[in-house]
């Protein structure tokens, strides 16, 4: 197990390196001079050159990358051009809120998706199966930023039950586990949960259907095992695959929450990202993307290792 973990870890390193290159390149492909935003309009040529030297922009691109990565490894992700605060501080505050949203959505989506998928797989080719299939296709087809707006229309505008904006009363940034705050979490979390419900239901349906039709399940029935015992066996067999799909979905939730956070003004990383984009705050953009991507890479690693722990067949490949 440990050697499998180490092998996976070593495979992750080049990917992490590649991710850092892509994030670095984001600033390079951006049109215009990254310093225009903070440079005085009437700056002289010397002042401009001095400024470039101060930010290391006079050096060749590979050298700039090495400087950037060296700083990064010391926890220095540069400063936000818009606020002047360190990027790391800005990003980590926001990522916390995003994680809260993503985990809440996962807690809603995974049990519901699993339940629906299992129903459909167990009662294959019945009305129930078709209904679940329709729900899951609709779930993966819906633009969730629009769904968020529809939910706001229903529950905030028409019914007035839930707030439509922010993470707490009066645009509060500090999260507390009380009803006034949780009220704000419900709509965005439900919105975010719809796509993974569809995907998890689809996966579990296929898994349950496949496994139930396998010979060993027939053998279990033939041995006189009860329906409940057979179900438990099936569930264990499906667990490894289902787990990996869910793990990846959790990563996607963090990335996919960007649009939802914009709809609900949720003060997370996506919200930060859209601010960074509009203020052309490239260091902040770069830092946010990097942290989110690295989180996704780590999530993949955890999923792989967890999957191997559950299903020993995987280790061999």
């Amino acid at each position, binding site marked *: 197990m440990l050697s499998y973990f180490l092998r996976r870890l070593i495979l992750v390193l080049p990917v992490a390196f590649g*991710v850092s290159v892509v994030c670095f390149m984001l600033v390079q492909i*951006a049109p215009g001079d990254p310093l225009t935003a903070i440079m005085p309009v009437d700056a002289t040529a010397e002042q401009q050159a001095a400024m470039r030297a101060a930010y290391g922009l006079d050096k060749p691109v590979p050298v700039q990358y090495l400087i950037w990565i060296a700083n990064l490894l010391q926890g220095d992700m540069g400063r936000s051009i818009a606020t002047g605060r360190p990027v790391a501080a800005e990003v980590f505050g926001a990522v916390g809120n995003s994680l809260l949203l993503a985990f809440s959505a996962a807690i809603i989506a995974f049990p519901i998706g699993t339940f629906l998928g299992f129903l459909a797989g167990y009662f294959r080719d019945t009305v129930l199966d078709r209904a679940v299939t329709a729900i899951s296709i609709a779930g993966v087809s819906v633009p969730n930023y629009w769904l968020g707006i529809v939910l706001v229309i229903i529950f905030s505008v028409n019914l007035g039950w839930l707030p439509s904006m922010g993470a707490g009363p009066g645009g509060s940034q500090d999260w507390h586990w009380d009803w006034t705050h949780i009220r704000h979490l419900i709509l965005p979390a439900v919105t975010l949960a719809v796509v993974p419900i569809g995907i998890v239901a689809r996966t579990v349906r296929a898994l349950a259907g496949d496994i139930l039709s396998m010979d060993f399940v027939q053998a279990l029935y033939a041995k006189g095992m009860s329906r409940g015992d057979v179900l438990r066996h099936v569930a264990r067999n499906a667990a490894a695959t289902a787990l990996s799909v869910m793990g990846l979905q959790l990563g996607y939730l963090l*990335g996919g929450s960007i649009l939802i956070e914009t*709809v609900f003004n949720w003060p997370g990383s996506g919200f930060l990202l859209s601010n960074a984009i509009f203020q052309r705050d490239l260091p902040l953009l770069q830092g946010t993307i990097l942290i989110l991507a690295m989180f996704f890479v780590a999530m993949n690693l955890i999923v792989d290792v967890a999957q191997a722990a559950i299903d020993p067949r995987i280790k061999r490949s």
Partner: protein
Amino acid sequence: MAQVEAELQPQAEAAPKPQGYWSGVLGRLAGDKVAMACLIVIALLILSAVFAPWLGLADPYRGSMIARLKPIGTEGHILGADEQGRDMLARLIYGGRLTLFIGLMPVVFAFFIGSALGIAAGYVGGLTNTIIMRVVDVFFAFPSVLLAIAISGALGAGITNSLVSLTIVFIPPVTRVAEAVTSGVRSLDYIDAARASGAGALTVIRVHVIGNVLSPIFVYATSLTSVCMILAAGLSFLGIGVRPPEPEWGLMLNTLRAAIYVDPWLAALPGVMIFATSLCLNLLSDGLRSAMNVRD
């Protein structure tokens, strides 16, 4: 797949005319009611978008102070008017032009580029494969939404930039599928037989590989169109896609969002279009998958 094909044509031995692969696929697809309905909806959307100027619609760019946020069903504005008093029906139909274009073209580009990369990696193998696939792995480390927003965010708004960023997002998944399918075909004896005829790599790929790998890659690519649509409209919704005043469903959803307290259902209309299109694309792709006997 071979066996399935054989089972589907039990009378092949007695058939007077041999049946090609594609006529079989089309026949099966035509029998799938859901897929056909979706195909018709998508065809209508595309046709109405292309021929919008000849449909006798209102000018989608001309606003009017007094018509602002007229509700659905208003005389002269069947689907209402937006926050600048522009006719919603005209804007929704004209909006299909950019939305469908930016929503579908990246998958088309990615299909060609990704297939070329994946087939090269899968056929040549070795170092070529390692280099291509490791780069693909890096892009897989980004959730697709994040990657699209990152590139579009860095490049800035605009139609070309959206096309570029979405194409980059969809090349890696197409490449991965193309590589897997090609590696499978590469190990079959008929490829060895073709090589043993003295044919060069390009001839073998052109004559023997492409025909056998393209349909699974194509089916996979069609399954990406729905996501691409949603993402393309999402970029415009965020303000990093199409620029105003162009009619585009995602952008319309964004600008009308402020009006949800005035006329909520009017504001939701552009989203209905995105949802309906993406649903039809998904169902059509599913239909195509079963018609082509592609298993995933």
